[in-house]
């Protein structure tokens, strides 16, 4: 078990800097999810921790030991890859035992560990099959088994669920979480799926364009997003953004409505409203002209435009709805559930 420190970490390919001064302290046993859109550098960061990419500058320490110059095998980590990366010509048992065989562990110790991991992952009956005879979910388990038998200080997951179908993904997500809690191994998990990130992580690191936008617990990120990027990325459906003018505790919406906000700021700002925080209110200041309804069963998403303007806005209402296209519904929002961002920098305004 170990903690991980990332200190002023920079990665460049030639003159192009792709990761900019990443800082992060990961506590022993924590489950950290690195999340961001594709191309944000999240996989690169993970691979740097794994030792598959070199560190341009800065330091990575695992358990207080600087590992920048160490080979992946010397870092005491285990990695689960997106496409599983199982050795196709070896049986499940051989796949799981390969790393231990190289480390020259005694045969019965290897067998014991493989059996134990197979037991945990419920893949005992597949031990003598080849990876190609297994389904995607089973391969994923084998890949995790291969990580578990090494008994590492750190688990690294590189989008391990993205090749699975939706239902299996939800199930495996829970299993990974349970497994990690049971083993208590410090883990870093990379994904672009914000739901996966929210449900799995003790803390989330949101990356965008090589910068850390925010690093905190899922609830912190949801309740107090540090930037418009985080606000738009975390939560589904995504937060609505409207340009407003703030004065005297009120936001003037485009089209003229007045919405109370919990801020003493004054001046132009971007107002963020989560669709699920819009409450139906016949006298509310937010009038939505409906373009489309998405019926999800438990609730309905109303997509439309702020009446009289071109600003698109989405609201989530409980139950069913059958309003016609072009009809208008009015909403209000609680002042403490509104978010204000600086229009230029996208940073949260906390005044």
């Amino acid at each position: 078990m170990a903690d991980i420190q990332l200190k002023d970490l920079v990665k460049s390919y030639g003159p192009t800097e792709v990761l900019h001064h990443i800082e992060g302290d990961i506590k022993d046993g924590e489950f950290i999810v690195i999340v961001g859109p594709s191309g944000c550098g999240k996989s690169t960061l993970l691979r740097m921790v794994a030792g598959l990419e070199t560190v341009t500058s800065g330091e990575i320490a695992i358990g207080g030991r600087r590992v920048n110059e160490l080979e992946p095998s010397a870092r005491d980590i285990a990695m689960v890859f997106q496409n599983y990366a199982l050795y196709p010509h070896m049986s499940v048992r051989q796949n799981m035992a390969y790393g231990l065989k190289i480390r020259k562990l005694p045969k019965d110790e290897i067998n014991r560990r493989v059996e134990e991991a197979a037991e945990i992952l419920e893949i005992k009956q597949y031990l003598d099959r080849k990876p190609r005879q297994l389904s995607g979910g089973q391969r994923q388990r084998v890949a995790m088994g291969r990580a578990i038998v090494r008994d590492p200080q750190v688990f690294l997951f590189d989008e391990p669920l993205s090749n699975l179908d939706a239902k299996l993904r939800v199930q495996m997500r829970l299993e990974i979480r349970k497994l990690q809690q049971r083993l208590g191994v410090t883990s870093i998990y990379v994904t672009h799926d914000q739901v996966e990130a929210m449900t799995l992580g003790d803390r989330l690191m949101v990356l965008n364009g090589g910068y850390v936008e925010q690093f905190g617990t899922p609830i912190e990120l949801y309740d107090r997003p540090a930037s418009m990027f985080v606000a738009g990325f975390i939560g589904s459906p995504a937060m609505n953004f409207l340009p407003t003018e703030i004065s005297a505790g009120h936001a003037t919406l485009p089209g003229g409505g007045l919405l109370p906000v919990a801020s003493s700021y004054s001046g132009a700002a971007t107002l963020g409203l989560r669709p699920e925080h819009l409450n139906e209110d016949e006298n509310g200041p937010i009038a939505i002209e409906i373009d489309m309804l998405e019926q999800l069963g438990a609730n309905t998403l109303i997509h439309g435009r702020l009446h009289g303007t071109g600003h698109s806005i989405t609201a989530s209402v409980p139950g069913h709805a059958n309003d016609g296209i072009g009809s208008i519904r009015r909403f209000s929002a609680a002042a403490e559930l509104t978010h204000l961002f600086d229009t230029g920098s996208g940073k949260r305004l906390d005044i």
Partner: protein
Amino acid sequence: MVEHRPLTAFLTHLVLILGVFAIALPVWITFVASTHDELRMNQAPLPLWPGEYFLANMKQTLFGSGLSGTEQAPVWLMLLNSLAMALMISTGKIAISLLSAFAIVYFKFPFRMGFFWMIFITLMLPVEVRILPTFEVVANLGMLNSYWGLSIPLIASATATFMFRQVFLTVPDELLESARIDGAGPLRFFFDILLPLSRTNIAALFVILFIFGWNQYLWPLLITTDTSMTTIVMSIKQMLEAAEQSPQWNIIMTTALLAMIPPVFVVIAMQKLFVQGLTETDK
């Protein structure tokens, strides 16, 4: 495309049967000729059905002096020479091209692509083109009349290197990374992961290269002067021109028949892997 019209069925079968006939007839005649005595083979018309001298011909060809009135090595020795040459060429080619492809695909070193193209360019330099300098080198190294001289100049292979390079490029990077995390060094990765994954390609290449080596004619003819180093393919030609007498077709054809057996055996033994190696792309 599946059609069930009687006429097309008839035509396709006709074409196939003609094809089989065209290929099988010469082989059949070779076999028949090896079962008659010398006298019968010099009379017209040629026999189309086997006679009873097969074992006698076989014995004389394999262990006797072969063709009477010449100083040929016994055919079993030629078979052995050919086998040694073909095996050395095919295994040597495979070993060297596996290693060079491994170096080119998995290691970063200066002028990597330069080396690759240098290897590639040798495609344009088969033995026939570089015959004089190669002979000079082999002669100066004292490798005339030896297995080394027969095989080494033919071992370097751009085709095989290129093929293994393509095979290695289809192996996902994650396997290498996974092996690195498991603690496998380059050689371990090569032997534990890469070789087993290229198994079918190696087999396919072995079949092709074995036949290539077995059928070498010009090069062995040039560098062997000692009859004990004669290979079987060159001896068939020499038998035809031997002495002033009429050709002993029964012996020549028995030799030809014997010369066919090892390649056929290799193809049959490796057929399954061979087809997989040429068609399978999934790693």
